[in-house]
């Protein structure tokens, strides 16, 4: 057979700098410059630690959302699931302090409960989507209401607070750290790393992208489309649980307001990071950058007193658009 012979052609058409790929990172760099200009304190290690720690919650959730969105789905229920999981975790831990005493065993049980709940919730969402054949948007809109309602019920409309003895034990999980870097940041990094490995290096990750780009092709390629979709939701549930495990020791409480709008933030982080809302192409590192960007914008606005508080939201919105405009605009001009 004749060898295809095109020796004169360069191997990589985009030998230079791939702006589509690097766009989010550039936008992030731009924000960091902006932050430094606004207030030099911005670059202080303490502030950066704060920013990254805050990012951890929605960031971890957004890693999960990257999978769901890559398969072409969407999960609106993550914020309320977080609240519900936090609520149940607190109730369980408070109940166990009596018999077991305030200590690590109770925390561990609490964590297990959170993880279990996250997995089950993901399973429910996933089953309704795959077996029930309902759009993910509607399913998770429904479960969003359900979880939110359940935590309100659990808290009797108020706030569930962790037993103070337990708080002391559990606190370091949020406030502690290693080598000067707070625990949540480590966990976030680990989740992102594992997420990246799963998305880019495993069969499951491949299948997610294949399903999102054309589920018929996936079906004809012997992929169990329903199972992969289901697993993506379960993974999302797990990510929510991990976020909650870090969240509870922060304020030691959960209420009807916990996690409100986290879903929007998580999805925004994913999309800003370059994952396509229609599915088919996911980018974990982009998601991480997207999540950090969103926190940074808040942080920068809090560090300046120049703007009327009323207009914070407008500046935020404008920065999001401009950041993405620059990154995409430049990319498409190539």
């Amino acid at each position, binding site marked *: 057979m004749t060898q295809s012979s095109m020796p004169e052609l360069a191997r990589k058409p985009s030998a230079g700098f791939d702006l589509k790929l690097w766009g989010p990172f550039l936008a992030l760099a731009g924000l960091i410059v902006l932050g430094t200009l606004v*207030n030099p*304190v911005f670059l*202080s290690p*303490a*502030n950066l630690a*704060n920013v990254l720690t*805050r990012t951890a919650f929605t960031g971890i959730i957004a890693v999960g959302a990257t999978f769901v969105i890559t398969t072409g789905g969407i999960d609106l229920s993550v914020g309320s699931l977080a609240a519900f999981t936090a609520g149940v975790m607190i109730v369980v831990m408070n109940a166990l302090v009596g018999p077991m005493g305030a200590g690590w065993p109770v925390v561990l049980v609490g964590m297990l409960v959170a993880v279990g709940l996250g997995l089950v919730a993901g399973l429910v969402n996933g089953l309704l989507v795959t077996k029930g054949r309902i759009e993910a948007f509607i399913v998770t809109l429904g479960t969003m209401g359900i979880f939110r309602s359940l935590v*309100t019920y659990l*808290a*009797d*409309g*108020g*706030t569930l*607070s962790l037993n103070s003895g337990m708080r002391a034990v559990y606190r370091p999980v949020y*406030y502690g750290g290693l080598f000067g870097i707070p625990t949540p940041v480590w966990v976030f990094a680990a989740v992102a790393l594992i997420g990246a490995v799963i998305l880019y290096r495993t069969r499951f990750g491949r299948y997610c992208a294949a399903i999102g780009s054309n589920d018929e092709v996936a079906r004809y390629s012997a992929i169990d489309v329903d199972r992969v979709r289901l697993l993506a939701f379960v993974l999302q549930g797990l990510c929510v649980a991990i976020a909650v495990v870090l969240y509870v020791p*922060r*304020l030691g*409480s959960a*209420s*009807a*307001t*916990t996690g*409100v709008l986290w879903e929007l933030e998580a999805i925004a982080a994913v999309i800003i990071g370059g994952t396509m809302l229609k599915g088919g192409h996911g980018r974990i590192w982009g998601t991480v950058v997207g999540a950090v960007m969103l926190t940074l914008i*808040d*942080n920068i606005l*809090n*560090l300046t*007193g120049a703007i009327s*508080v*009323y207009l*914070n939201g407008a500046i935020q919105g404008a920065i999001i658009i401009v950041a993405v405009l620059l990154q995409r605009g430049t990319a498409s001009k190539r």
Partner: protein
Amino acid sequence: QQKVKMGVSIPAATHGWAGGLNWHAQQAKAKLEKQYPTLEVVLVTARDVGRQANDLEDLVSVRNIDALVILPFESAPMTDPVRAVKQAGKFVTVVDRGLTDPSIQDLYVAGNNPEMGKVSAQYIKQKLGGKGDIVVLRGIPTVIDNQRVDAFQEEIKGSQIKVLGMQYANWNRDDGYKVMQDFLSRFPKIDAVWAQDDDIALGVIEAVKQAGREKEMFILGGAGMKDMIKRVMDKDPLVPADVLYPPGMIAEAMEITAKHLVEKAPIKKEYIIEATLVTPENASKYYYPDSPF
């Protein structure tokens, strides 16, 4: 025997204080229905103004109430819908957030928002000796929030109290925590924090502790959440006082209205619940350990 129906419309439990409100309303419902066998209390909650207006329509047209107790989501937009209820011949009790046309209501039970801002300012002024740097964490952009902040600023005028920064924290713990973290990065010296709301204050406390700057400042919240009252009681130096704005006022309003409905008891037109300053001396009087708030 014909039942007397009392409709109660309040905002849904979307944050701590509103949660307390819901809890007290439910307690009062149970208690009043037991106390007056001929009374039926219909309790509805709404998550925005539009829905609260819908609820009023439903209470009148399909639930057929005789009286309405309402804590309006917001004053101005709810004025007309409440007027419609009044025009349908119902007894109207307004709680907390007054209507723009007070002539509509038969009874008004309220906390005093401007007073709350004023009392808070007076306390901070006095405690700082009339001089110091403070930060303010506001609630949600609403009239209530404006009234409190305006009165607060009016009161510190002329003193040497300087407001370094002011941001919305949406009556939310997480937001309180975040905003305070950033204030702490931005300002090397803060003498006091006016958090205006106990949920925000709880977030602020954590941020201050994390930064290890507890010694530097004190925090003044507001509402009378049990955790905060407890801290005041326990003489926590970080939380030396609190200003009352009790969600329990809904229960009071329901009780007065019910009594009037069933027993035809005569009533005053207005009950104003003062924005009392809670200090270690009087804290035990305001401590309800069983309430969720």
